[in-house]
């Protein structure tokens, strides 16, 4: 029987007993709840009570949350104005691209927006772009995070094509993303009194601290043959170029907003805000839309009813399901765990009949 000795090593490991009988017996698996798969366990069963209370609980939680979210969204005041068409002089409406590309045309545009309801500060100013695929793979990849971060990697432009170098000199910041920096500007005034637009905290603190170096200065930027967008003041380090930083956080979706600034005063209802727009950015060549958005925020963010509606729907559905299940249980009850429902018992019952 010693051929079995080889296989028993696993069981022998723990036993210190030297008697031969014990040695032989040590092949027997040692009993433990774990090895016998008998660990204490909870075996939840979806009883009617549990199911109904679960549905009711979801309903009870979701409906108030939904209502709260909806009302928060209702309280948000948002002014959105699409200006890409209206800001083009009527003569150029036929040839938008020529208008925007020309250096001679007047890009200044005046707007008057009426505040529908009181807007408590801070009022966020966004520019809204539509049909601009900032998540396009070619676009997203065309940047160099190392270069942005530190001066040492200034020449790290390999991923930046087609805006990597100017001759042999590296472009800082390189890449399509930086190159296409949004360059419309807005100036606001109420009753001929200009409103101060604060750029404080519009970019992520983490980006300013770690991602964009304070020793990295723009170089050779936007001086090539093709101008994509805004120019940068080459005496200000990247970590201070908040508009660039905001822009470089590429949007997740083709329709997106980006923070332009904040107005730190309340806007009263029915006030008229005049906006001077420098309409520089070329969205015409691909049919993109540009909007100016002024909005307050709530705890849920901006004006968006979706989550509230979703919560109300799910909550309502759960309550409905709870009621339906109560009905099912009332009209078609089944005792749980009744062995007579077992298929073989049913079959034999049928046979007996």
């Amino acid at each position: 029987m010693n051929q079995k000795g080889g296989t028993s090593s696993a069981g022998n490991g723990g036993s210190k007993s030297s008697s031969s009988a014990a040695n032989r017996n040590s092949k027997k698996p040692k009993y433990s709840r774990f090895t016998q798969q008998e660990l204490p366990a909870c075996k939840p069963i979806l009883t009617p009570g549990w199911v109904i209370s679960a549905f009711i609980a979801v309903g009870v939680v979701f409906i108030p949350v939904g209502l709260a979210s909806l009302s928060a969204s209702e309280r948000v005041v948002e002014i959105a104005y699409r200006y890409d068409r209206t800001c083009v002089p009527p003569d150029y409406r036929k040839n938008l691209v020529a208008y925007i590309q020309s250096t001679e045309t007047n890009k200044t545009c005046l707007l008057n927006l009426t505040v529908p309801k009181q807007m408590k500060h801070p009022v966020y100013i966004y520019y809204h772009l539509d049909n601009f695929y900032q998540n396009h793979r070619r676009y997203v990849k065309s940047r160099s995070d190392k270069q942005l971060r530190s001066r040492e990697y200034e020449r790290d432009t390999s991923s930046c094509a087609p805006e990597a170098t100017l001759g042999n000199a590296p472009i800082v910041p390189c890449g399509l993303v930086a190159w296409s920096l949004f360059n419309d500007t807005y100036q606001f005034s109420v009753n001929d009194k200009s409103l101060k637009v604060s750029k404080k905290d519009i970019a992520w603190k983490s980006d300013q601290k770690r991602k964009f170096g304070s020793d990295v200065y723009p170089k050779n930027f936007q001086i090539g043959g093709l101008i994509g967008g805004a120019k940068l003041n080459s005496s200000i380090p990247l970590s201070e170029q908040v508009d660039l930083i905001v822009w470089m956080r590429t949007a997740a979706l083709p329709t997106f907003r980006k923070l332009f600034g904040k107005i730190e005063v309340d806007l009263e209802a029915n006030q008229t805000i005049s906006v001077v727009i420098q309409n520089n950015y070329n969205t015409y060549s691909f049919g993109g839309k540009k909007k100016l958005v002024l909005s307050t925020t709530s705890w849920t963010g901006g004006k968006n009813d979706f989550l509230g509606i979703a919560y109300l729907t799910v909550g309502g559905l759960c309550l409905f399901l709870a009621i339906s299940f109560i009905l099912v249980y009332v009209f078609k009850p089944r005792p749980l765990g009744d062995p007579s429902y077992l298929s073989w018992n049913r079959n034999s019952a049928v046979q007996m009949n």
Partner: protein
Amino acid sequence: MASSRPLLMASPRIPSSHDFQSISTLNDLLKPASTDFNNPFESSVNSESIVHSSSRRTGTSYQRRASASNSVREMNFGDLGSRSVSYGSNRVESEGFGTSQKEINDEDARLIYINDPAKTNAKYEFSNNSIRTSKYSVISFLPRNLFEQFHRVAYIYFLLIAILNQLPQLAVFGRGASILPLAFVLFVSAIKDAYEDLRRHRSDRVENNRLASVLVNGRFQMKKWKHIQVGEIIKVPSDQSLPCDIVLLSTSDQTGVAYVQTINIDGESNLKTRYAKQETLLKNPEKEKISGFIKCEKPNRNIYGFLANMEIDGKKMPLGPTNVILRGCELKNTEWAIGVVVYAGRETKAMLNSSGAPSKRSRLETQMNREIILLSLFLVVLCTIVSTLFGIWLARHKDELNTLPYYRKKTFAGGKEEDYNYYGLAPEIFFTFLMSVIVFQIMIPISLYISMELVRVGQSYFMVRDDDMYDEASHSRFQCRALNINEDLGQIKYVFSDKTGTLTENKMEFKCASIYGADYSSGAACEKVGYTVQVDGQVLRPKMKVKVDPGLERLAKSGKGTHEGKCIHDFFVALAACNTIVPILTDSNDPTVRLIDYQGESPDEQALVYAAAAYGFMLLERTSGHIDIDVLGERLRFDVLGLHEFDSDRKRMSVVLRCPDNIVKVFVKGADTTMFSLINKSLNLDVIHATEAHIQKYSSHGLRTLVIGMRELNGPEFEQWQSSYEASSTALMGRAAKLHQVASSVEKNLTILGASGIEDKLQQGVPEAIESLRIAGIKVWVLTGDKQETAISIGYSSKLLTGEMTQIIINSSRKESCRRRLQEALDMLRNCTRSSRPVALITDGTSLVYILDSELEEELFLLASECAVVMCCRVAPLQKAGIVALIKNRTDDMTLAIGDGANDVSMIQVADVGVGISGQEGRQAVMASDFAVGQFRFLVPLLFVHGHWNYQRMGYLILYNFYRNSVFVLLMFWYTLFTDYTLTTAITEWSSMLYSVIYTSFPTIAVGILDKDLSRRTLLRYPQLYRPGQREDCYNPKLFWITMVDTLWQSLVVYFIPLAAYWKTTIDGSSLGDLWTLVVVCLVNLHLAMDVVRWNWIMHVVIWGSIFATIICLIIIDAIPFLPGYWAVFHIAGTASFWLCLLAVPIAGIIPRFVVKILSQFLCPDDIQIAREAEKFGHLIGRGGSEIEMNRSSNPLRRQMS
């Protein structure tokens, strides 16, 4: 034991399946020959002789006797590798003797000059004796291991994708991220392989550096094993294992006998005898130089065959398998043996046999591959959609491409204007297609393969550790030899069982005898008697005590004065002599008493010899030349003149003895079917009839019977026999056939001496286990070599057959009558299908010969599939395999074969699941099996508990893996539609790679190993709960499609709720990606949590732990400043919408599945659901089946708990 390594290596499948096949083919190869060489008389009974012996046990052991007698059996093993065997055995082809008819060709032979290794190895470089079982060396490890791992198609797929991703045009992911999952999987497996190989290296080194005594310059010197060369002479002391294959020259025994234990080669623990040739016996190589050469066949893997000639001093003699000792054998009870090395190192038969066998694949995995193909179709569809849409977009915007700020087709970097990364419309579409394959690659779940492997390892850990499958009697645990088919255990529909050793214990006990027409069967009532004799002042006592019949004992002791006494005398001499048992003396506690241990290959023979000893005919010594029997206190010497070994078509063996009174007698022992036709019917017809009646009675009690006959040879007869015997046993070629003829010439006109009845006890718990199997809807077929009556009686006692069953018996020896019988039976079945009386089909090997492989097969199948029980008696090993194949080929049902002996090997290998019983009969069955148990009754926990769990877990695991990967792929696909079809991933590449490796894999593995839908107790109480597995309830195309629809819904919820919540906001890609990652991980884990049945602490840890791990990983990834998503997760977590999404998505995603689940559970509950409720609420009142006390010593703790 060290040398056991080459053969008993811990490999998932047996290393040496081929030699088992050779065992099983043996019978078949011999059978055709019989028709060619038999005399007409034999041919006429050929139809009967094809079936196996009535005592199969004796049969198989005799058949291995090739190694224990002086004769040699030649056979052609050329076609052993192929599995195309004919199951019906009357396809007569004489190729079995092909090689035996011709000399060994010079080009096919190797010449070995004895004691002249230089000359031996001069012309051919024979391999030296160092062995290498390790697969890799330091240098070859990497390439070879990788090569082997990439045998998996899935890995090649992932490798191709990783390579694609390296092309600059297609680099969707960073280089590191794209290789990560594949590298991880490869790395884990490589570590495992390296560790295993390291152990092999170590044991190789130990093995190669062992010392053996080798003749160098006329003296034996110690030499390392690895330096031993072919042609050298080595000397092996007792209890040492052989370093290489040697031809015996001489041994310490005068007659040149050496006893060896072949446990490392074929697993048999009994001693076998090997012989040195007379011519070399007396030579002492240290004193005189032996010169000569051996011409032997090329190395082959047949461990039962050896064909060679030896020429010494100009005298030529044949060598057979009995003259060689193989590497790995151990020398026992022989002080020393000297032999010449013929095969060394990797050319030894043991090493040639240690190659692996192809592994089985589980049913579930095969079905899974079907769905994997579907998934790849989905993948192609998704990729086509993406690339087509992208093509359309490109075509529509082709004029704007230059000015689009986010596209910028042109670059001016080099001073001149040129296209940048734009290759034209068609290539762009093609690249997009490839890129989308890269992005959506995990649609084919790479982690599934490794999860399945890990889960199976875990499952087998628990199966091996199961208390309920531990055999107290033999101290053997459950063994899981195949790691690929755990889940098949949950789907078995047919169990094919061997009888002896499987249903019964195979502990033979002599029960009764019929001697010369008188029945002596009252022995059972008496006490066991230990008969002793006094020899040389020492008391000799047989090791085992036997119950004796007092009447018979009295008669036996009364001497041979009467005719009756003479018969009894002859009967017991036959029992003691007509066998190949070797008595071994062992010391007992009492110094004056020595025990005789009868070592032999057949338990029947052992029982007979012990019985003879108890009645005063004690076998004391056996050499190749004589037998010493102590007959009632007087030591008598019988010269053994010849021995006709057992073979399966003669079904008998005979020995020619010169008795002390100088009369030459031939004693024959064999199965009644063949024996009665040899008995001289003119004498004592009433004795024959009485014996026949007794045999009938014995076998109806479930006893195994053997008939013993005898004949005195007169002078001329003897001389004629002797000359032809010598001629044929020294014949160089065709020896077996000639011996066969010689045997037939003396085994005739016999006087009947009597018959013996041997009991083979049922194993514990067999009837209960069979009943449970039946309740579970498993058809139990018994395939046995035993007689029909024996089989039926065992059938009754094991509750396989019941009184209310209609029995259909088919045993005819002609094809036409078989056809008629089958037709009648089928008609009968059709007529009485209304009545629910179960039908039992009983057939025998003879009929099967005509049925299998003919057009009747179909009818047999139709009939058998209607029957509740099928018993096949007297079937040969290959017929067993044929019957299994009959079901396997014609149905989709899973088959399980269980057996313990070499004759079950073929059926174990053919069946979907092969279970070996580690019992009395060596370990071949175990070595060939996928699982090994100690007792038949362990099938019940194995199938109902572990099989059920494994199947249900694995089915769920696969579906869940499909689901979780598809959800993720679809999520990315939806996003692609919003990125201008350019395959930007909001989810970082690292997350998308870690998703299936870390974020979601541990819970699935834990569930696959640990979750239990029902407790062990419930499953054993209601065997019917096994049926869902047979019906494929846990994994089928319907479930797959339901899962896919659910997947689609969930992916929509996961994608669009956050999308809509953050629509028209300043959200950036990385933040939204983080949100999506977290939501999808929460959703899939919640989904899993909903389906987990048993929540123990491990489940809690892995499920909540993996959500936690995901958060940690997201934080780590977002803490790397040069990744675009720096700090994104913290920013998005600061918005309320994030938390609202996190709550809403999983709940909205899970509602449909939840509703469907509770509705189906409540309105149309399946059995498992009801049993689960009953388990919880304690309504286990109605008993579905008999509960089986599985383990008597089972822990009281368990009883209280479940």
